[in-house]
């Protein structure tokens, strides 16, 4: 059982917690906060109380975690036989976690003809690489990949397993976590080891980035997390680094699957996808038409970035859905985000407000986008962007 308790001696009836509740599950009765039956135990109110009068209680069986689980394991991602950059970022954070837990770092690589890639995983920090190769494992498959990965984890018993929060990672890892009956935290932006307990502290945004949550997996092993792409840093590769490559024997039964990829199509190949970009130039309603997006493509090219958009530009048919940043599109966290003619509706902000630097260009000085912009420029984007492209090109030449 678990419940939210109001400590009557501490509660002063200020109502701060009521404002913090998303579910309207707290009320005041006789100057004391009371918890209503529709409380979901989400915990969003805990921090809101200045008097520490709210406490989450639970009767929990003592944590029974097998001691035998040890080490950090990274799930490497490959497409068409090439490692995806998120794999290097995972090794970067995995290395740190392995050092903090005084253990080693392993990687699992599933694919076909990926031998040379296994060596690269070692160069980027892995001590051991488990390679599962088969002609049928060349393209990602939910069932066979999950079966192989689940078995490797069962055999190796790592204490921590991390994977990319990519299209593949977010389909594959939940399957594996359920098969292992363990916890999984999605789309983490921070991973650390708690000093006192040795638990993995998994930090992630929730409610569209409006709040951050710190999550622990105390009662099952391994502790599993998917990690947002572009947040963690890869280490510089060391080609002389030594490691062990271990072949995973495969069982025919594991490779059996009820789904087949008939073809894999790359779209918008003239630009990098927004999830891969360090710099994104985005256009919104202020763009006016498909053709006018060309000024953004030119700026993106000069900066070596990608082009994104707000929902209104997608709904107007100016750019494809793959470009959309925001609540019903993609969440991005580039080093630089340039919002052009985007007013900054909250649906858009939740998809980009964690970017390192935000530049907003808008005619309307009152546009909400300026509230999150590191640099805001009030003016006509069609006058400003071409000049900016020119300026960047000439400064790069110098």
């Amino acid at each position: 059982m678990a419940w939210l308790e109001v400590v009557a001696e501490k509660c002063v009836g200020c109502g701060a917690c009521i404002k913090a509740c998303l579910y309207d599950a707290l009320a005041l009765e006789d100057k004391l906060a009371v918890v209503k039956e529709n409380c979901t135990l989400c915990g969003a109110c805990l921090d809101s109380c200045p008097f520490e009068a709210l406490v989450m209680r639970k009767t929990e069986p003592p944590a029974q975690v097998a001691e035998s689980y040890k080490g950090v394991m990274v799930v490497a991602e490959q497409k068409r036989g090439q490692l995806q950059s998120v794999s290097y970022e995972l090794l970067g954070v995995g290395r740190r976690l392995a050092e903090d837990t005084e253990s080693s770092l392993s990687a699992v690589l599933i694919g076909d003809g990926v031998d040379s890639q296994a060596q690269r995983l070692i160069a980027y920090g892995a001590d051991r690489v488990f390679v599962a190769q088969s002609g049928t494992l060349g393209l990602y498959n939910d069932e066979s990949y999950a079966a192989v990965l689940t078995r490797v984890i069962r055999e190796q018993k790592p204490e921590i397993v991390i994977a990319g929060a990519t299209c593949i990672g977010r389909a594959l890892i939940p399957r594996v976590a359920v098969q292992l009956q363990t916890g999984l935290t999605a789309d983490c932006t921070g991973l650390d080891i708690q000093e006192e307990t040795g638990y993995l502290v998994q930090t992630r945004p929730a409610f569209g980035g409006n709040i951050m949550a710190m999550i622990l997996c105390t009662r099952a092993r391994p502790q599993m997390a998917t990690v947002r792409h572009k947040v963690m840093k890869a280490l510089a590769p060391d080609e002389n680094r030594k490691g062990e490559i271990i072949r995973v024997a495969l069982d025919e039964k594991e490779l059996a699957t009820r789904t087949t990829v008939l073809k894999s199509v790359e779209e918008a190949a003239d630009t990098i996808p927004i999830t891969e970009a360090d710099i994104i130039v985005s256009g919104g309603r202020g763009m006016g038409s498909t053709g006018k997006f060309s000024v953004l493509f030119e700026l993106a090219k000069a900066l070596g970035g990608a082009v994104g958009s707000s929902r209104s530009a997608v709904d107007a048919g100016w750019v494809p859905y793959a470009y959309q940043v925001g609540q019903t599109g993609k969440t991005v966290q580039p080093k630089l985000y340039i919002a052009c003619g985007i007013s900054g509706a909250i649906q858009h902000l939740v998809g980009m407000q964690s970017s390192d630097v935000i530049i907003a260009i808008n005619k309307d000085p009152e546009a909400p986008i300026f509230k999150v912009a590191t640099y805001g420029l009030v003016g006509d984007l069609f006058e400003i962007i071409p000049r900016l492209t020119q300026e960047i090109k000439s400064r790069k030449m110098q």
Partner: protein
Amino acid sequence: MNIIVCIKQVPDTTSVRIDPETRTLVREGVPSIINPFDMFAIEEGIRLKEKHGGKVIVLTLGPPQAEDALREAISLGADEAIHLCDVAFKGSDTLATSFALSAGIRKIGAFDLIICGKQASDGDTAQVGPGIAVQLNIPQIIFVRRIEEIQEGAIVVERISEEGFDVVRSALPALISVVKEINQPRLPSLKGKMKAKKAEITKWGIAEIGVDPGRVGLDGSPTWVEKIFSPPEREAHEPWHGEPDDLVKKLADELEKAKII
């Protein structure tokens, strides 16, 4: 064909506002809505029913007020609604939630397709769909943007990837999760609204779906929310006004200083 659509009632995060004085998030009075991604799942279910016949059953797990979300789904065209509602479910993480939902689906019986939204806008995990597929031992296709065809016990869809899309065929029964691109959800009809008002909502607790209380709620959840905090505030400057040439020079200087260019 029998279609089960899993939905979640969520707080409308887009109406969360910032208190101008204290600069803290004001979450009070935030309305509850059907998770935006689930609207596409409901719509796709109804379209499939219109094309292939059969029925659409909407399923949710949540507190008593989640019934409103089920009624809204009926107003849009769903045929039946089932509400997994029990205090024992409180605090369920994605493992416990997918376990309970899959137990509910087993009690429903035969089905051809389960449709989920890509993810819920409050938790943003996208983990419950795959969790249900595993617990029911059916194949899954995650992040579907188009259904090409359904015939002879198989479904062919387009699934989005970082670079574009994959065309994937799966045997039925299966579970798919859908993205916004798949359709444009309809608005409820007057007739639908009348039907929703009168509709009987089936309520099942842990006894009805036959699950051990230790497998759901906080007890059945391996993950634990240790702490919730507000994200660090962004450093925002006053926007600049002026001639385009001056603005561009000033910006380029700043970017150079910050080593971005």
